[in-house]
């Protein structure tokens, strides 16, 4: 289903449904009678109760257990209706909080499910670009030396062998974050600053010692939208949920005049 974007705006829902509600009230149709004293437990309702039992116990209820669940359901229903009749939902802080939460949830539910367009996400990505840095990828070779002097000597003599260590000698197309995991913060930062070259460069310090590095490819431009699209969408969604709650609140808040005595 691909509706125009405005149909998904909570504001439109509020206004549109407000109109329907108004018509419904003016019409004066038959509302559900809260004082109805008929509780019908049909097959569908029973299945629902059985399912919720199964959700916890991991098996279907026995007949006796289902009967107990139905008894429980009837009890709730009776007390719920009677509570409504007595107006116990009024001025009750729990009910208030619950309803406030439901309104917030209502406003944000559309954002949970929304399918943002590429354009929307790209704009969000551009606005928050700094959050998506650090995704450059590197391809390089490295030789390890436990002392700085050995590394310096090696680069001067053109040696092509380092000392043994359980680190990969060759890194292909790894994100900087992954290089940081393997070699540490200091090394990743230094490596990112090396220009690609056929020559060995360094020594570059790491938490392990010193390294000569042959930077083959440094793809800094790779922190592109496509690579972080999922993350952008997720972040957009979080931001959108907050924004929609706020917008819905502002719409509802607008007609109120608040008087504060000082």
């Amino acid at each position: 289903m691909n509706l125009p974007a405005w149909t998904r705006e909570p504001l439109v829902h509020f206004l549109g449904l407000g109109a329907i509600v108004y018509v419904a009230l003016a019409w004066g149709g038959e509302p559900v009678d809260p004082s109805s004293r008929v509780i019908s437990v049909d097959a569908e309702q029973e299945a629902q109760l059985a399912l919720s039992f199964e959700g916890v116990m991991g098996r279907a209820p026995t007949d006796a257990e289902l009967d107990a669940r139905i008894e429980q359901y009837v009890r709730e229903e009776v007390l719920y209706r009677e509570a409504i009749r007595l107006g116990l939902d009024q001025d009750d802080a729990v009910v208030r909080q619950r309803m406030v939460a439901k309104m917030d949830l209502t406003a944000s539910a559309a954002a949970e499910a929304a399918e943002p367009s590429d354009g929307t996400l790209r704009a969000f990505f551009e606005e928050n670009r700094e959050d998506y840095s650090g995704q450059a990828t590197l391809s390089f070779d490295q030789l390890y030396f436990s002392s700085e002097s050995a590394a310096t000597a090696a680069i001067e003599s053109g040696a092509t062998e380092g000392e043994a260590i359980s680190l990969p000698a060759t890194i292909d197309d790894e994100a900087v974050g992954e290089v940081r995991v393997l070699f540490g913060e200091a090394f990743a930062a230094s490596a990112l600053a090396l220009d690609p070259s056929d020559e060995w460069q360094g020594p570059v310090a790491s938490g392990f010692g010193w390294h000569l590095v042959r930077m083959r490819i440094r793809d800094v431009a790779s922190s592109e939208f496509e690579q972080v699209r999922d993350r952008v969408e997720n972040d957009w969604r979080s931001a959108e949920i907050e924004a929609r709650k706020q917008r819905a609140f502002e719409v509802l808040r607008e007609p109120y005049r608040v008087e504060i005595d000082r």
Partner: protein
Amino acid sequence: MQKTWNVRVAVGVVALAITGCGSEVSLDPAQTGNGEETIELAEFPNRPYWGDTHLHTDNSVDAFGFGTRLGPEAALRFARGEEVMATTGAPAQLARPLDFLVIADHSDGLGATRRLYDAPRWYVSWVIGDETVLRWYDMMHESPEQSTLAVAEIITSAADGTLPPTFSDPEAAREGSIDIWNTQLGLLDRYNEPGTFTAFAGFEWTAMPDGNNLHRVVMFRDGSDLTSQTLPFPGLGTAAEGLWDYMLAYEEETGGQALAIPHNPNLSNGLMFETTMPDGSPMTPEYAAKRAAAEPVVEVTQIKGDSETHPFLSPNDEMAGFGVKGWELGNLPLTAKTEPEMLAGSYTRSALLRGLSLEQQLGVNPYAFGMIGATDSHTSLATGDEDNFWGKHTGNEYTDETRANASQNLGTREGRFGWHYLAGGYAAAWARGNTRAEIFDAFARREVYATTGPRMSVRIFGGFDFADADWDDDWVRAGYTRGVPMGGELTDRGSAPTFLVSALKDPDGANLDKVQIVKGWIDGSGETQERVYDVVWSDMDARPRSAGRVPAVGDTVNRDDATYTNTIGAAELRTTWTDPDYASGQSAFYYVRVLEIPTPRWPLFDAVRFGFDLSEDAMADAVAQERAYTSPIWLKGSVAP
């Protein structure tokens, strides 16, 4: 009355209509499942993936009461490396992101404290009508300190089995859980990014008969398509076997997988690893098999102490006793003291030994488990780093000056102080990529290890034909193709097993002091034995063994500014080691313990940051050798039929 009702119906219609619009959730299917076939995998497990399997958020009954107001979303953001604002108002961020996270809120009273806190006083007073609950309610609203005390009482009461029905009524709990569970599952899928960050569904099963901690963390391999078909299993009033049945039922019905991770055996007063059934009768093979299948891994180190071994159990191990002080006094709420004869059922090394014995009697080993570390943080902040310790709960977060020296008991009794708490540990999982399936499967085959915080890379392969020359070539391939990795089993071939052991330091942490192999076995007379071998250490030429012991590595920690230097120790330690005490037909296990050089613990960082003096006892414990414990490799000897 009629009019009001109409309006209310109308509002309901609006709400329903709005919620009903556009319910097509647009998550990438790769995020919502178990991650199989979503990313390219390495041929062999290529690096340890780091995570915390034991994090509480404000949905945990105690965490909320202790003051935490950060929820699961903040927890996920923090774990993947973002800055979040902690409850106490300071920004919090990990120096390095984690690769995976299990949110493990208590299944009992999921969200209950929050519901109680939000209730109006008259409701608590008239409807709940329980004086104790009303007193807790008032304490929670009075001040953060009183709130902390109230929760301590709630935990003690849960431990004593005297919790009022508001908290323990399963029907009420179930209703409360459904919303929280389903909301959380959706959130976990949203943050689950195969190849980048893995978010697992889980919960903590919090059974503690008489205050003896039998807690397990349950983690699921699956996405919300399967996990939404179940609900967290209550801990109060149920037994471990009930939990395993619940897990089996989940697996059978959904085709998914779950595993349980016992934690804090150190606070179980010997009940976590018993040699009998819980009722004292002889253990049956069925029970042992069920336990082994459900619980492949134990959480051996976390904020509430370390459970590797106790000096009483391992008198010849000079490195035993890390994270034991304070915790060794008694059970979780300190309602019962720990007696020496209880210790063997409370620590993992002795449990591994008991497992070998039980296997001889039953033909199956109930305690053939691997080892991980975790935080058990109740702040929504999964950090095990000494210089970034956010406290056990919000009552003692990073900004609390007094937390290191202060008495910190769950109940009202004396005994445990702030500095007894560890900063917590991490789990390292050797996997071929970062997905739910890959990480979970590493746990299931026990190819995981524990650290007390640092991220050193530790490998062990066991086999019969490894040699020093293997190091010159692709030794990881050799390890996987000619032997078994940690968590694996070797079958006795009449010759001593040989191991390739490698430990690479944390690239942003301290150097390594030494690598040890801990061996446990059953001797010729059927007695269990243990021995710790120093197999490789830094500066071996300058530091030769004397009187059978490796001299101490030294100590570079400056107590005045909480710094150390890597001028001692080594970047990597590796060796090929053959068991010198092998006897044919012997049943044994071998695990690796790696020790870092001494570094400051969190109380020392606190003392420097705030400029106060640690108490004498705290100062004596302000510097420690952080460590890693791998899962064992078992040598299967002759097993009685």
